[in-house]
């Protein structure tokens, strides 16, 4: 741990915060724009060029919006809940590489670390929902917690198939192993499972149980005003970024775009394409019912993921070069 290292890391963390902020700004605008176009309307238009300043305006407004704390709310977690939701998502970003070597902490268990961070999120959501002392929030929080914990397992198991084939959980290694053939082609089943579960982990339509606007007013953040609401949104957008980034790294070849030379640009491109796809899903589908969501995970996805894992295991043993 040299001082240079320390400064480097400090800068890296600052950079990540910028990425976090930039991502939410870009995605907020892009999502509204995209949904707008799906709805045959222009979306944000008159705040800056094609509404590009819209997220900034929202941000400024949220900063200057009163922070209502309900009398009966649990003061501590009403305040700390959004934090608990944001920080793990942010931490997960630390191990995600943009290019070989271009990563803050290229730890050997990068993949597992992301999942470990993701397990904290349901806890955060439960606390957010519980602290508000509001029935909608409570139901929303418990729902989202139940959903997140249910989808974590098939997600990890299908990711383990990748680990099995790549023989490493270091994300850079996994990407490098896809220099020619992306795992999406090698492991299509795992990819499909991972995609579905990742969308569920991001709490996006058709799995958007945290918000479930028509059912639970605004879900877990019913009581959260101003910046706290912004923070919850930030956590969700960051989770979306982390999730799509993971998919890109694990299955879509990361910075590889054969036959073009590898470049961090491809990662960014793929990540945002994927996020656009998720927004597109949101613009198309209704929401699944809660019990169907749970059933889907426990009755279909987990057995399927296990079967897939075993099948991949057999393949790896039988065909050494798989």
């Amino acid at each position, binding site marked *: 741990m040299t001082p240079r290292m320390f400064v480097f890391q400090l800068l890296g963390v600052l950079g990540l915060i910028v990425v976090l902020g930039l991502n939410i700004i870009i995605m907020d605008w892009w999502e509204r724009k995209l949904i707008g176009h799906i709805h045959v309307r222009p979306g944000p238009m008159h705040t800056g060029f094609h509404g590009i300043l819209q997220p900034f305006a929202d941000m400024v407004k949220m900063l200057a919006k009163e922070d209502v704390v309900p009398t009966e709310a649990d003061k501590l977690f009403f305040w700390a809940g959004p934090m608990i939701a944001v920080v793990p998502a942010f931490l997960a970003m630390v191990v995600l590489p943009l290019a070989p070597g271009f990563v803050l902490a290229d730890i050997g268990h990068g993949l597992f670390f992301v999942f470990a961070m993701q397990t904290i999120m349901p806890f955060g959501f439960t606390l957010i929902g519980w602290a508000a002392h509001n029935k909608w929030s409570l139901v929303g929080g418990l729902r989202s917690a139940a959903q997140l914990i249910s989808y974590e397992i098939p997600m990890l198991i299908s990711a383990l198939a990748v680990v099995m084939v790549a023989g490493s959980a270091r994300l850079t290694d996994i990407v490098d192993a896809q220099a020619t053939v992306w795992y999406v082609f090698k492991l299509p089943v795992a990819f499909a499972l991972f995609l579905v579960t990742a969308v569920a982990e991001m709490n996006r339509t058709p799995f958007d149980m945290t918000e479930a*606007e*028509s*059912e639970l007013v605004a879900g877990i953040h019913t009581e959260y005003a101003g910046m706290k609401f912004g923070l919850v949104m930030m956590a969700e957008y960051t989770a979306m970024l982390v999730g799509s980034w993971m998919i890109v790294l694990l299955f879509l070849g990361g910075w590889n775009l054969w036959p073009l030379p590898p470049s961090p640009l491809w990662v960014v491109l793929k990540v945002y394409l994927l996020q656009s796809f998720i927004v597109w899903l949101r613009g198309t*589908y*209704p*929401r699944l*019912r*809660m019990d*169907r969501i749970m059933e889907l995970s426990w009755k279909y996805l987990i057995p399927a993921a296990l079967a897939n894992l075993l099948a991949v295991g057999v393949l790896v043993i039988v065909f050494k070069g798989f």
Partner: protein
Amino acid sequence: MIADHPRVGHVTTGGTTESIVLNMGPQHPSMHGVMHMQLELSGETVLAARPVIGYLHRGIEKLAEHRTYAQCMVLVDRLDYISQYSNEWAYCRAVEKLAAIEVAERAEWLRTLYAELVRITSHLLWWTSVGLDLGAFTPMIYAMLPRERIFDFFEATTGSRLMPNYLRFGGVKEDVEQAELDGIHDYLAVDYMKLLDDYDTLLSGNEIFISRQEGLARITTEQAVSWGVTGPMLRATGCPRDLRKDARYGVYDQLDWETQTDTRGDALARYTVRVKEMRESARIAMQCIERMPAGEVRTKVAKILKPPEGEVYVRHESTRGELGIYIVSDGTAKPYRFRVHSPAFMNVSALPHMLPGEHIANFFAIFGGADNVMAEIDR
């Protein structure tokens, strides 16, 4: 006397330790207006539901007693603000029956046309809310497209997008230009049908949507009849009850159309019936335009109408079911008593029977399927 303050009592079933009593509405994104539902939940299962209405009670029935018959049209428009022409027509029919007024031939066709167009817009609005209740908000925006087109037609011909005040005793306010009619005919024939096909693919064919609607809150015809449920909700149980055919008004008997039914009786059936009706209504409207005779649109009626003493009740197939208008006249220029039998009210009162035992997420699918308009329930 306003006996009850909004802070109403609790749901009656005794709460266990696990149950939460939840106020749904009146300010709730998908309560379709200012409905208030008190739900008792155990976990996420509805144990008991109690609709609380009256948040939009504007006293229309009482106000009508202080207005002349012609002036009441304004109130009738706002009774069920989603299918205004149906209300106006029902009211006109009642008054015409009471005062024995002839209706001009062309006006009957125009009335039929408008009633069917408004049925389309109403069903489209319901379609938006069905999507919205299930978390898909694109249908909401898409349904706006044909709605806007039809509203354009309404505005160009009657002067208002929503509150037309167009029907008059003995006819309609003024004639419609042929160009406008042709325009809407072309739209219905081509673009509208295409849009509907697309929308069908978007929602009706969606497996998620089907899985959320199928088998939900299944009711039988007997149940529906005993709860007084009418309209598409009744037809979805397989009962071909349609006052347009049964009560014989307008020019429906001269047109080629069918009552849309579905035998399943569940939420999906209610959905299907309404979607089919959207197409059927367009067919009726197109036929109206094609076969509309020329002529006067209004017969001579006294400026201040004073119907003879007596009472009248007409039944009318509004978008939501059987709309009844009851008027008692005492021979003066103002109705002595004006009463509305609201289809939405009957449909909503069936909800407490249908809801218990359902998952809270299903609550909205069922609730939306009833297609209620609070303005009509509360009056």
